[in-house]
């Protein structure tokens, strides 16, 4: 399988603190990679470095064979290829559901309004929010907001969809609806990079699980290996604490 993103020796400092240390991993086409780890281990920072919301201090991010950290690269174009779903949804407050899913297509991808709406409706159907196109974000529940946020990201038709703890801000009864949408997407062959505390989801859906600890990748393997046969003591320790 073709590599979509390859992270090499990535490092990131906030002031004096090295938050990411020599991170190496790849995401292949069609793969679902889950990143787990305790709070503060650098999971969000890693995702944010990958789509350049944070500027890495060292290393390479190879996207389709090119290092996007060399200055020649068009950051904005690159970002359209990576979808991002945030913990806090971050739907655009000034637009309704449909407009949230079309504004990027129209203003960034230069699609016509008609085409953008067609694409948006397709993905709003996928997440089951096509009946709510007139609603403003503040009129929706958390689970509904997150499903719209997923549709918004999908509407840009990215190569990879990244999720940063997409269910952590949700009431427990809404976690299921979002996870089931994500499960459907995984089955459809979408490439996904998911930071999550939902170990059930990770063990069921992931092709590969990455365990991060204090800014390094401590262990990486199939869900089977990580959850049933962790090699590292700190992985075992982490799993003991949260399961």
């Amino acid at each position: 399988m073709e590599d979509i993103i390859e992270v090499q020796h990535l490092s990131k400092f906030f002031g004096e603190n090295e938050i990411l240390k020599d991170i190496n991993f790849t995401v292949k086409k069609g793969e679902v990679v889950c990143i787990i780890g305790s709070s503060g281990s650098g999971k969000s920072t890693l995702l944010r470095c990958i789509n350049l919301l944070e500027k890495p201090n060292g290393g390479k991010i190879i996207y389709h064979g090119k290092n996007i950290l060399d200055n020649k690269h068009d950051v904005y174009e690159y970002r359209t290829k990576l979808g991002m779903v945030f913990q806090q949804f971050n739907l655009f407050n000034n637009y309704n559901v449909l407009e949230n899913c079309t504004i990027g297509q129209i203003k960034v991808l230069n699609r016509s309004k008609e085409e953008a709406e067609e694409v948006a409706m397709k993905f709003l159907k996928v997440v089951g929010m096509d009946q709510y196109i007139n609603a403003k974000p503040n009129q929706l529940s958390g689970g509904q907001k997150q499903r719209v946020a997923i549709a918004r990201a999908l509407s840009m038709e990215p190569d990879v969809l990244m999720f940063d703890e997409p269910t952590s801000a949700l009431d427990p009864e809404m976690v299921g609806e979002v996870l089931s949408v994500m499960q459907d997407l995984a089955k459809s062959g979408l490439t996904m990079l998911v930071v999550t505390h939902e170990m059930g989801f990770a063990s069921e859906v992931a092709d590969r699980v990455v365990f991060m600890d204090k800014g390094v990748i401590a262990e990486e393997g199939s869900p089977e290996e990580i959850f049933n046969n962790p090699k590292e003591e700190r992985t075992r320790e982490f799993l003991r604490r949260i399961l």
Partner: protein
Amino acid sequence: MTWSWFFKIIEEYWPMFLRGAGVTLLISIIGTVIGAIIGLIIGTIRTIPPSDNGFKRFWLKIVNFILTVYVEVFRGTPMIVQSMVIYYGSLMLFNINMDKMFAGIFIVSINTGAYTAEIVRGGIISVDKGQFEAAHAIGMNHAKTMLYVVLPQVVRNILPAIGNEFVINIKDTSVLNVISVTELYYQTSSITGNVFRFFEPFLIASVIYLIMTLTVTRILRLIEKKMDGPENFNVIPGNQMQVARPDHVANKIGKRG
């Protein structure tokens, strides 16, 4: 008797009052709108994140410095003094004899601009960081992020403050009488010269000012309501076939809300 004077003056001089009120409204409307646009532009420039490129960063610093000077100077001096300095200054130093009306609009605009620049900056800062990040994440650059995501929210949020500026402008255009702009205060003063009475003409003027400010406040409230859209949305019933034309559905349902 005061009341008979009151009505007599209205009867005789209403066209002058009306013209004065018209000029006052015109200058304050145009001044507020232009000022708000100046404020939006300056507020946007002042919140551009520092660039990695040293050259760009240098220019941004200089521009920011100039804008800070502008804001501080116009907020820190009275408009009545600015009017004198600008009007007579342009005459003396540059030999420009400004049209009175133009001078009035110019002074009110740049004054309002200085105030709204700060209001806008505050408005931009108070927009959730997540809104910027979500916009960046779908590939918008700073300009697009501001234009399509942040500023619409800022405009909505600062509308009450802009309305406040508008009301202040309606009252403060009266200082333009020092450069003989024929706004309401100036006209009222002229009338006092004709009738040799002060109380009644200015009582009439204050009623007119009050009517203008109250009307403006009401209208702005309506605009705010309009911008917020309907309070409720309608769920579109299932198994709809017209997926290809969602805007039709959207329009139909939006109207009912």
